[in-house]
């Protein structure tokens, strides 16, 4: 369905902006408030329009999005509503860029433990795609940062879940539930995040003695990028020094985080943590990778999709998944972006029906074409 000229009410017309490059929608809308998001989604539900949600455009390659009628840009839902350094909480609009608030937090030696190279990604996009920091082995993933979420459901209801305190078990955990949901429950308009203090000492050890890694007590991250292993440490000075001395390799102060492989095809290989090394051995020789040891997440890049099917079969036989993160448009017609259906797909479908009955937000993005 397309939006007929003149069909968009004046209240929504005022939000119209240019469609971002990469979106196939005909109309771009940039709401400035939760109320405006409600207006757009009610209109979309009434008219059965498909709405693509767009933060920084960093995670638009996931799933098989149906061609959208509208693209809802969250960039005007930005800004810091409250930063409480002593409470370790940060409340921000969903269109706030990760790089922007992480830079602000670093001034007080705090972090929201977001992806290290977010580019233009927004907090809304990071949450919806469920992508996490390279520090997740020690500090856990994006899901564990979520304290409160305010979202607008597909049929235009504004719903709040969680609260602005670091510990909360009041009712169903709807706030963390939006992580990885690609907006299917609602367009997130603001969130409260749990922050973490950044200790003063940091060091990186490159090419450590792999046989000695087990002597470390919970390093911040053990990463392997195309055959090079790096151990990231932080903490009290004495602790970092003692740890670095113990594992050999080349120690440098501070952290320089490796970047994800850049290539035409990008993938996420997810396996039980103990199979990380085995998974790396299964990769086609030309693929580049960044593996998070102890987690089982391996970020991959390749120039083509050759070998992907074999890798998927191996991963699924090993209780894992090979997910397409990005690919040239139309290049993988017979390769499901998610692979085998997850358990409980019918319940997922029914749950989404409760929040987005006309399925207007990012339809087709989730497994099973939901």
């Amino acid at each position, binding site marked *: 369905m397309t939006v007929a000229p003149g069909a968009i009410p004046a209240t929504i017309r005022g939000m119209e902006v240019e469609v971002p490059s990469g979106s196939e929608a005909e109309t771009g809308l940039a709401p400035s408030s939760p109320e405006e998001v409600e207006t757009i989604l009610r209109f979309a539900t009434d008219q059965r329009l498909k709405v693509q949600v767009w933060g920084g455009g960093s995670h638009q390659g996931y799933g098989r999005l149906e061609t959208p009628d509208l693209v809802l840009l969250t960039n005007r839902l930005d800004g810091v509503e409250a930063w409480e350094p002593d409470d370790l909480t940060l409340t921000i609009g969903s269109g706030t860029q990760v790089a922007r608030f992480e830079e602000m937090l670093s001034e007080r030696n705090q972090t929201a433990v977001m992806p290290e190279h977010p580019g233009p990604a927004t907090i809304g996009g990071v949450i919806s795609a469920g992508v996490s920091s390279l520090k997740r082995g020690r500090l*856990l993933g994006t899901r564990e940062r979520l304290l409160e979420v305010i979202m607008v459901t597909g049929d235009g209801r504004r719903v709040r879940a969680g609260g602005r305190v670091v510990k909360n078990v009041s009712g169903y955990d709807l706030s963390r539930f939006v*992580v990885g949901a690609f907006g299917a429950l609602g367009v997130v308009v603001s969130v409260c995040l749990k922050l*973490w203090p950044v200790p003063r000492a940091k060091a990186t050890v490159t090419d450590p003695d792999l046989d000695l890694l087990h002597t470390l007590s919970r390093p911040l991250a053990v990463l392997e990028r195309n055959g090079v292993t790096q151990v990231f440490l932080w903490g009290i000075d004495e602790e970092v020094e003692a740890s670095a001395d113990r594992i050999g390799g080349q120690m440098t102060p501070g952290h320089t985080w490796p970047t994800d492989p850049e290539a035409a095809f990008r993938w996420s290989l997810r396996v039980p943590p103990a199979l990380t090394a085995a998974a790396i051995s299964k990769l086609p020789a030309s693929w580049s990778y960044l593996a998070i040891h102890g987690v089982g997440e391996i970020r991959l890049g390749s120039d083509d999709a050759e070998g992907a099917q074999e890798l998927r079969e191996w991963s699924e036989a090993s209780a894992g998944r090979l997910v397409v993160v990005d690919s040239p448009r139309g290049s993988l017609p017979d390769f499901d972006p998610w692979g085998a259906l997850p358990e409980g797909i019918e319940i997922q479908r029914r749950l989404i029906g409760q929040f987005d009955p006309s399925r207007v937000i990012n339809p087709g993005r989730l497994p099973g074409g939901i």
Partner: protein
Amino acid sequence: MTSLTLGQQRVYEARPLPSLSMSLVSDLEQLLGADRVLHEPVELYLYSKDASSLVRGQPNCVVFPRTTEEVAEIVKLAEVHSAPVVARGAGTGLTAGASPTEGGIVVSTTSLNTVDIDPENSSAWVGAGVINLDLTLAAAPFGLQFAPDPSSQSACTVGGNVANNSGGPHCLAEGSTTSHILGLEVVLAGGEVMVLGGLAPDTPGLDLKGLIVGSEGTLGVVTRALVRLIPVDPDVRTLLIDFDQVEDACGTVSDIIAAGCVPAALEMMDQRMMEAVENWLQAGLPTNRAAILLVEVVGETAGVEAEAALIQEIALSRHSQAVRVASTEAERQLLWKGRKSAFGAVAQLAPDYYLHDTVVPRTRLVETMRDVNEIADRHGLLLVNVFHAGDGNLHPLIAFDSSDLAIAEKVRLAGDEIVALCIRNGGALSGEHGIGVEKRDLMKMNFNELDLDAQARLKETFDPRATFNPSKVLPQGSLCFDFGGVRKEVPEGAWV
């Protein structure tokens, strides 16, 4: 069934037992054998409530399944008989979450007790009925531990921890139970068995497993959990720091975190609580001080020594009178025993207690504590405090005698005022105990109609026939609890 009225406001009347009860019992006996189905009144009485003083229900029967398949068959039978299913671990909950207020089948998970450690993946598949501490003991030979450590950990079950998203002192640094659940095996409506999540991270699609954690048994019955285990800490330092002013203790907490430290635990106890603990445990608590902090740091030896020294420095700059570092493991254990069994000590003060679990932003701790004490004083009640200061998770405890209904009513009123105060101060209804029946109707304080409607839709999708633990978590109709009407049989209680 007893029906009590209190203050003309809150009435609890147990629903009459479904008429099909004997047929249900015989069907269950056929499934499990007579020895695993309890239905005599005295037996049922033992399973009629949890550790709270709030509500006593009345189940039709109590069953002890040994396998997930048996749980699935029980759920199918329950649906045939329109009987509620209430999962129950050790019954240590404090919100009446495991009280069978609508009758039906209490499914005791205690025979779902397998532990299968996978050291390579630092994880374990654990039966819902496995006791929290037993899991950590089973993991210890592999150098691993289960991080969530509610004070009831020597009795509470992993299934109960999953149901309530339980916390504990050490969730300051490690997160609550939800951060440690990788997968769940669960029996849903229709007796359908699903295995959700798994060892590989980021299962595509909606995170159903995460939604079930903390849902208090209202979406299905969890039979096994795949838990994340963390390495046993190579070294530990436990510090006892005392203060003449509660404000200084709270300020020390903030300063520690501002210095970039997140200790494994940061607990506070006030003077009245210290007196109660010291009176029976003789842990050497400074009962002449206004407050103490119990701080634990873990990690590499070099790190914990430096961190302990830094914390000591911070505390002294905040006018601490003394810092004591536990010099032996026995001393450390004694200090923790004082903390974790603090509520048992309250039995010396009065036969009953009512324990609140609320959260405020940590920066509002001082004023909140002052106002909480003022509320108790105004009602003429004895209130003591021991709580998770690092999280802003308060546990004000009112000691009283529930046989005096007038006092019990004051306790209830004071409790509601405390919750309202914490919400006003930017807090939440519950930090780690959950909602159950206790706070079900207070949910409206924290959430508007649309918010509650969204939560109700989750419940309805999973459990359209309202089979699983009905009348819990979400407010519906009139309030149903009997405050102070049930005396605690065993005053040692005290699970927080």
